[in-house]
């Protein structure tokens, strides 16, 4: 018997998805015009969870201003703490001890690994591979354990200080790092077998949501999403900070291994490779922590920052994270404005959704690793 594809006569329908739906990576709405299940046009609406962090930073003194910084992106908050500290230290001309810089680097890389593992877990759930997510979250717990051992917290750490970090390396931390990095290295091979060698998983992501270099340039997309499209830009290499220049690591880019360059599959591959590179950096960094102080000075609640401004940039797990800090010499910041990677990355979504089917939306969105917390600051 020969089956022929049924031709459906459909008209253009308007659909609204969200703002609150478990298949979306956060609280936002997608308004679509679809023909059958094919999207012709998509528009996003964000702002539902706007926290007013930038305004509340102006109301806090410098001593407590680190608190809202963490909430920019709770999943990878150490990058925000780091860039804020770098900016204020530049205004105050504070020299950070080398030991503190290396500790910051170690924690930032742990943060990156944790965030990338969270990405892989979320993506495996929406791709229909929930079992894999349990394995990945098991490893992420180990990373959070390490962060807890150092900072006392699993999220929203509040650990970086102006001039260094809040505490020195905890006893047993370095040994646990070696142990955990070895284990995750082994587990990455397991993920490879479960995801990358799995044709069903590859078919779900290859050729999906292709980000072209033109869209990347136009929308200001950065981080692993841009690197997956072949844009080799990583702030840790371009303008090294916090002692990154002392450690050797690769910047993986997309190769179109199973589909085409810049597709969803490349975004997974780049993050898997980045975890591997971060493990390498971690292993070297913990063995190279210089002796000395972990904090340049103790900050008091009446601390003031001289009049001036600074713009600092770091490579967070999601891309280029920058902050512009302005001080008028008083007890409070005049302005703290963030340039978050997801603010730019989400701009590419309407382009990516044009011409795809509705059932592919969750996978494409998950493959971009958007943080709505960063968009709605």
């Amino acid at each position, binding site marked *: 018997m020969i089956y022929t594809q049924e031709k459906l006569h459909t008209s253009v329908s308007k659909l609204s998805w969200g703002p609150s739906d478990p298949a979306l990576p956060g609280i936002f709405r997608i308004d679509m015009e679809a023909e059958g299940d094919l999207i012709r046009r998509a528009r996003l609406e964000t702002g539902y969870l706007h926290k007013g962090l930038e305004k509340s930073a102006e109301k806090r003194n410098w001593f407590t201003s680190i608190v809202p910084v963490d909430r920019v992106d709770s999943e990878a908050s150490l990058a925000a703490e780091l860039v804020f500290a770098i900016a204020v230290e*530049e205004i105050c001309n504070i020299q950070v001890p080398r030991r503190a810089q290396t500790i910051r680097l170690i924690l930032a890389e742990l943060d990156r690994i944790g965030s990338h593992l969270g990405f892989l877990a979320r993506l495996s759930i929406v791709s229909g591979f929930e079992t894999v997510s349990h394995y990945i979250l098991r490893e992420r717990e180990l990373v959070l354990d390490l962060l807890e051992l150092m900072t006392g917290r699993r999220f929203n750490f509040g650990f970086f200080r102006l001039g260094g970090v809040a505490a020195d390396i905890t006893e047993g931390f370095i040994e646990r790092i070696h142990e955990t990095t070895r284990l995750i290295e082994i587990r990455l091979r397991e993920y490879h077998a479960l995801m990358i060698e799995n044709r069903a998983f590859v078919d779900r992501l290859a050729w999906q949501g292709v980000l072209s270099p033109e869209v990347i*340039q136009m929308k200001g997309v950065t981080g692993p999403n841009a690197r997956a499209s072949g844009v080799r830009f990583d702030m840790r290499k371009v303008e090294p900070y916090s002692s990154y220049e002392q450690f050797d690591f690769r910047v993986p880019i997309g190769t179109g291994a199973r589909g085409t360059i810049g597709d969803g599959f490349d975004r997974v591959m780049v993050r898997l490779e980045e975890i591997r590179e971060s493990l390498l950096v971690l292993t070297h960094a913990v063995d190279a922590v210089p002796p000395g102080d972990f904090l340049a000075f103790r900050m008091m609640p009446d601390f003031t920052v001289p009049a001036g401004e600074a713009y600092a940039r770091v490579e967070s797990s999601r891309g280029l994270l920058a902050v512009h800090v*302005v001080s008028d010499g008083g007890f409070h910041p005049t*302005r703290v404005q963030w340039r978050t990677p997801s603010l730019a990355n989400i701009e590419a979504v309407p382009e990516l959704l044009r011409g795809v089917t509705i059932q592919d939306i969750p996978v494409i969105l998950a493959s971009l690793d958007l943080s709505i917390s960063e968009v709605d600051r």
Partner: protein
Amino acid sequence: MRTQLNRLEAVFGSATQIRNFGRSEKFVVEAEFVKLLEIAVWLRMEEHFRMDLLEAFTIFESKGKLVLSYFIRSHPHNLQLVLRSSVTVPGAYERVNAPSMIGIWPHAEAFETELAPLFGIEFTGSRGTGGVRKVFGEFDGFPLRKSYEWQESFEP
């Protein structure tokens, strides 16, 4: 970089002032507000600059002025620059008109759509794609201005 900036000064004369950005080695080009768009177009198109990427666009209020800062980069020449201009803050409920940079740097749309309602700025001249809208709700005034009355609590 300083040599290239001399070209800018030669073209625009007293409409621009160049100084260092904070303690960094970056330069700030302070432009007269009426010349802002023209200078931005020049920096984007001029052979020795080709500032093709807007990395960030920030606004802050200081001494009764809204200061607009464009952090721009050039991939071909590996340059970084801050283009800046300021405009007097009007009454607490009055909006300011400023040129939109979307036509020069499309990425400006992400910042302009966010900053417009929060600072009470109307960006004119270019229309974005409208791909991502921001829904912040209603405010009594413009929350990121210094004149905005901060409420410690909100009634649902």
